């Protein structure tokens, strides 16, 4: 990586990436953000012209799939969407067979989301096409972590007026349901690799055992978690969890862990508020804060397209073919 090049065929998780590789992806993204921001003319570049990108989603997803699809289109690729309901998996076809069929139509990039951790990894090892993990079980969601790190870095650079500023020493609090969150896992790995300090806050029933071994501080006290932080990262509370009695009541969760105008007073004034979406308004995050000045939630959405363009460009054009 010394020359700043890229050599990977696939993007499976943040865990395998070095700090230099993550930085290369973040540094590649601004030129792609500029394409979407073109006020006049054509919002497209020909880097993936004539390539086929298949979005293969076994779990429901609208925004991640749309983001990948738009990213592929902005790179002039052809796109094809497959969902579990429309695929032959319901007819008993195995994953490998389905993928072999996708490859038989000469897909170059396959973006996969699957409920089982490890599926993208297994497929990447056995197939020649470029695999991008768009979320696998509770394992990882690498492009989400990359777009989050990019958003934090961009906002930090704007605030400090320093175009070289890095995440080193930055304090990030991740609040909510860490247990079921691949977003949290990928974010912890990514932020820590970039030199940031990560704190987790949530009910202990929604906190994975042994998570502190990832080198993070864990607390169930929101005031403690938000003191001195630069970023408050709220996670989506999956409401169906309540049925499993993982927390006593929604009202209690809100009282103890909701990020709102009152609890944001624990954090410094410059602290950013982030959320991977979709938001449960007035559950994990109050509407006032979600729509407030400190929220960069919609910037995350815009940056997601640029980051996914950067990832596809690096995988396909970076010389990572085996």
């Amino acid at each position, binding site marked *: 990586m010394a020359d700043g090049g890229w050599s990977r065929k696939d993007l499976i998780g943040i865990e395998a990436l070095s700090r230099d590789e993550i930085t*290369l992806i973040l540094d590649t993204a601004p030129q792609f953000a500029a*394409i979407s921001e073109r006020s006049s*003319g*054509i919002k497209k570049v020909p*880097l993936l012209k004539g390539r086929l990108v298949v979005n293969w989603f076994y779990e429901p997803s609208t925004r991640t799939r749309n983001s990948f699809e738009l990213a592929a289109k902005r790179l002039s690729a052809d796109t094809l969407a497959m969902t579990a309901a429309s695929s032959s998996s319901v007819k008993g076809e195995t994953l490998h067979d389905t993928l072999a069929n996708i490859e038989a139509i000469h897909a170059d990039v396959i973006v996969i989301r699957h409920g089982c951790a490890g599926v993208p990894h297994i497929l990447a090892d056995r197939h020649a096409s470029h695999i991008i993990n768009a979320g696998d079980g509770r394992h990882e969601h690498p492009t989400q972590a990359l777009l989050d790190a990019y958003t934090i870095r961009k906002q930090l650079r704007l605030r400090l007026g320093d175009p070289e500023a890095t995440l080193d020493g930055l304090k990030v609090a991740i609040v909510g349901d860490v247990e079921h969150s691949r977003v949290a896992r990928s974010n912890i790995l990514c932020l820590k690799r970039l030199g940031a300090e990560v704190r987790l806050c949530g009910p202990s029933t929604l906190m994975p055992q042994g998570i502190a071994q990832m080198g993070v501080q864990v607390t169930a006290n929101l005031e403690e978690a938000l003191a001195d932080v630069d970023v408050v990262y709220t996670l989506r509370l999956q409401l169906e969890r309540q049925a499993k009695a993982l927390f006593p009541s929604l009202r209690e969760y809100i009282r103890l862990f909701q990020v709102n105008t009152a609890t944001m007073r624990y954090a410094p004034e410059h602290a950013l508020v982030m959320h991977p979406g979709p938001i449960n308004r007035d559950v994990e995050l109050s509407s006032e804060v979600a729509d407030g000045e400190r929220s960069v939630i919609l910037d995350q959405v815009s940056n997601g397209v640029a980051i996914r363009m950067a990832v596809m460009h690096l995988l*396909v054009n970076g*010389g990572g073919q085996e």
Partner: protein
Amino acid sequence: MKHTDIPHEDTIIMTGEAMEAAIHRMAQEIISENDPIDALVLLGILRRGRPLADRIAAEIHRLTGYQAPVGSLATTLYRDDYRSGMGVVKSPKGETHFDFNVDDRTVLLVDDVLAAGRTIRAAMDEVMDYGRPRRIQLACLIDCGNRELPIQADYLGWQVGTTPRDWVSVHLHEIDGEDMVLVEERPAIETDIPPVDLDS
């Protein structure tokens, strides 16, 4: 050739003085080809085309009083060598940036060296994605031949015949601390083929 800090005199094909004269002459030619001059905008191709574009614009301003808008063009997203696997992805040195509209303007592309012509092809495609210029023109400091596409400069500083083994290296004081153009031997690419011993 051994690379040394002080280049050998024979390798210098353009001095700072000659460069200044070339920019002056090119500016005069640009002015006479563009009447009225006020539809002209300049896009310098990164990296060394940008300071050259600034200098040409300054010279045009000195001669006519017209300050042409100047922008930067990266061209990296329009290269044709990614498809063949020849492209090496590196973190970009700079990005396309200009804050004017190219519609109905005369866009003057400025680059330091014109060789294969592929960069200019990419630059034209990029400009066309931003709008529909009335005309696109090309100014280059050095034309070193070895063209692979049917592209020629409208304004040229100096023409030099080179072989693909030669490396034309433009030094600009804004980037390199000095103004001069050298022809050097391309740094050897390591291969398994043993070098030919010319003495035997």
